């Protein structure tokens, strides 16, 4: 940043390279426990990048390292072309971070919260900007309500509104739609896509598969390790999973039986049907062959879903983890 740009209250676009996020070998441990291990990723500018992984896999920790809230133990990287280790302050000006837990001021009103954010970021006309944000959020008439008294879904919307108020170039959203109703979620995603179309880059962590499918690219992290990365189709294709679905009476009992078979690596009941999968197509077919003859069961070969892939990734990484002896802290 040039010295002349320092005092300008209006955000001056930083010349951003193609990659909004580009990190290599990021690691972070808390005490003995490695929470993020040798993580590398790239997010292209204007992309919506989904960040998935089981609870405690290190998503929040990674996001915090990206915006300079945590110092990585090892690794390097840039955010918007700025070094995450040395230019954290400059990064903060251009990054909107929405925390997993609501962390605006519960004892300030909606408008006061937004005005505070606007003033800290030096948005011109903070009062006007806050009023505009209130309208955009659909909170007109409730702008004097204390933020703490909003419902969970509205809190999330307010938090997102506060994030985009200072017109950042990169949004880091940590589970922004947890506990939000389907309609609001859809609106939320429509808004994210609009912002991305305007050139904003969005990294969003989520546990919802349908949201993952709305991302341009996704990354799957488990136990601190990045296990898969790419478009949804790529990730599914690269998984090498073969799946069948079977419909019949008593799917729970069926699932138990199938799970015990060699060659069956994954069994998941879905309503009246059961999803069965494995990596070795021949072994899987051999295993289920006797069951295909059984009356009342309707077998169909189908493509694995993203969820199948993730659960498979998670199971296998847990096995590896246990084998390495690295899973001594005994996480799920």
């Amino acid at each position, binding site marked *: *940043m040039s*010295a002349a*740009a*320092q*005092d*300008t*209250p*209006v*955000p*001056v676009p930083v010349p951003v390279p193609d990659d909004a996020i580009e990190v290599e070998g990021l690691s972070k441990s808390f005490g003995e426990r490695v929470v993020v291990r040798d993580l590398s990723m790239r997010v292209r500018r204007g992309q919506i990048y989904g960040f998935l992984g089981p609870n405690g896999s290190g998503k929040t920790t990674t996001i*915090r390292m990206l*915006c*300079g*809230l*945590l*110092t990585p133990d090892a690794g390097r990287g840039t955010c918007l072309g700025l070094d995450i280790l040395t230019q*954290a*302050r*400059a990064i*903060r*000006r251009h*990054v909107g*971070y929405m*925390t997993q*837990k*609501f*962390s*605006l*001021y*519960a*004892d*300030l009103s909606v408008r*006061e919260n937004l005005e*505070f*954010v606007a*003033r*800290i*970021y*030096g948005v011109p006309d903070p009062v006007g900007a806050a009023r505009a944000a209130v309208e955009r959020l659909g909170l007109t008439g409730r702008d004097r309500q204390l933020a703490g008294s909003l419902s969970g879904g509205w809190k999330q919307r307010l938090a997102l509104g506060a994030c985009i108020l200072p017109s950042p170039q990169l949004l880091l959203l940590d589970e922004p739609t947890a506990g939000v109703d389907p309609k609001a979620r859809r609106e939320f995603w429509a808004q994210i896509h609009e912002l991305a179309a305007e050139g904003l880059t969005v990294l969003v962590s989520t546990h919802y598969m349908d949201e993952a499918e709305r991302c341009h690219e996704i990354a799957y992290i488990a136990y601190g390790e990045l296990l898969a990365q790419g478009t949804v189709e790529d990730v599914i294709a690269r998984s090498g999973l073969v799946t069948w679905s079977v419909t019949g009476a008593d799917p729970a009992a069926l699932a138990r039986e199938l799970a015990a078979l060699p060659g069956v690596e994954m069994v998941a009941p879905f309503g009246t049907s059961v999803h069965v999968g494995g990596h070795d197509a021949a072994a899987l077919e051999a295993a289920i062959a006797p069951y295909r003859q059984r009356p009342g069961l309707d077998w169909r070969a189908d493509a694995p879903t993203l969820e199948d892939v993730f659960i498979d990734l998670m199971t296998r990484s847990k096995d590896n983890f246990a084998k390495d002896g690295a899973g001594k802290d005994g996480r799920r």
Partner: protein
Amino acid sequence: MSGGGPLGSLRRIGAMMRKEFLQLLRDRVSFATMIMIPLLQLVLFGYAINTTPRHLPTAVLAHENTSLTRAILASLENTKYFAVTHHPRTEAEAERLMRSGDVLFVVEIPAGFERAVRRGENPSMLVAADATDPVASGSALAALRTLVDTAMTRERFIVEGGPRGSGLEDQPPAFEIITHARYNPAAVTQLNIVPGLLGTILTMTMLIFTALSVTREIERGTMETLLAMPIRPVEVMLGKIAPYVMVGAAQATLIVVAGIVLFDVPVVGSLGLLAALTGLFIVANLSIGYTFSTLAQNQLQAVQMTFMYFLPNILLSGFMFPFAGMPQWAQWISETLPLTHYLRMVRGILLKGATADDLVYDMAALTAIMLVAMLIAVSRFRQTLD
């Protein structure tokens, strides 16, 4: 634009201040506490002082009954502080009366007292006081000083060696009163209370409220958002401290005005100087409170730390016990406490008319303490969540 410039910095401090003020106004309980603590203390102390106890039960153990002893007893009662209620016969009996709390004073006139006075032998009369409650006994003891004179005038005593007021003033008085404050050797005087209250109330409220203000952000999770914003630690600190400077100023004004109105505290020195030094003291306390808040994990710990710090302040600053009577090591500790210096300065200004020149040492010490606390606070403020 991330705001290296002073303008950006001021703007962020302003935003922070505004936010703190809104939160302060919204937190009715805290706000009420800030006003109520000084008011309550003042009313309580004011009540205690306005009813300076009179007619305190007194036992007189007279080993002779002469016109002089009668004159002394009459002057004792004349002061309105003493009411002779008991006439014990033995020292043991007098001792028991005092221990049981039946009397607050025992006046002992030795045998052959009058004769000794006439001979100019300068004999002693012993007054033992139950000083467990120094406010109760203090003013009565102070009144004793005039007793010799009144008793002598009353008796129109001709003391050998020339009458008093005849240019022979360096001659010892006719007799001596040895007062013996029992159970509490250092009696607190009333004039000490206003400077003391001013100092302790400011210390308490300033510390608690700043200590809480940062830990509250950590506890409620808002610190994560704050840290992710482009604001510097020193800007956060200044923005958080500033509203409380005003609160402190309001409290100080309240106490000083009430002190003048309620206790007739003389304001010998300059009120402007007092205001300036009070400002310095407030900022010093706020910086210390801020340092605590960067050490504490939660609001409870912050409150505990404040109390731990408050205790030596009360005990060692000279508010409760005279500074001069403390051992060397305790004096060194108290020199590091802002309250010690502030009390000296307030007493100096209010009661003795001290000027800035007289207070250079304490001003310098207070400034140094403040700067050290600020430095620690800013350097301790974590810019990350590690």
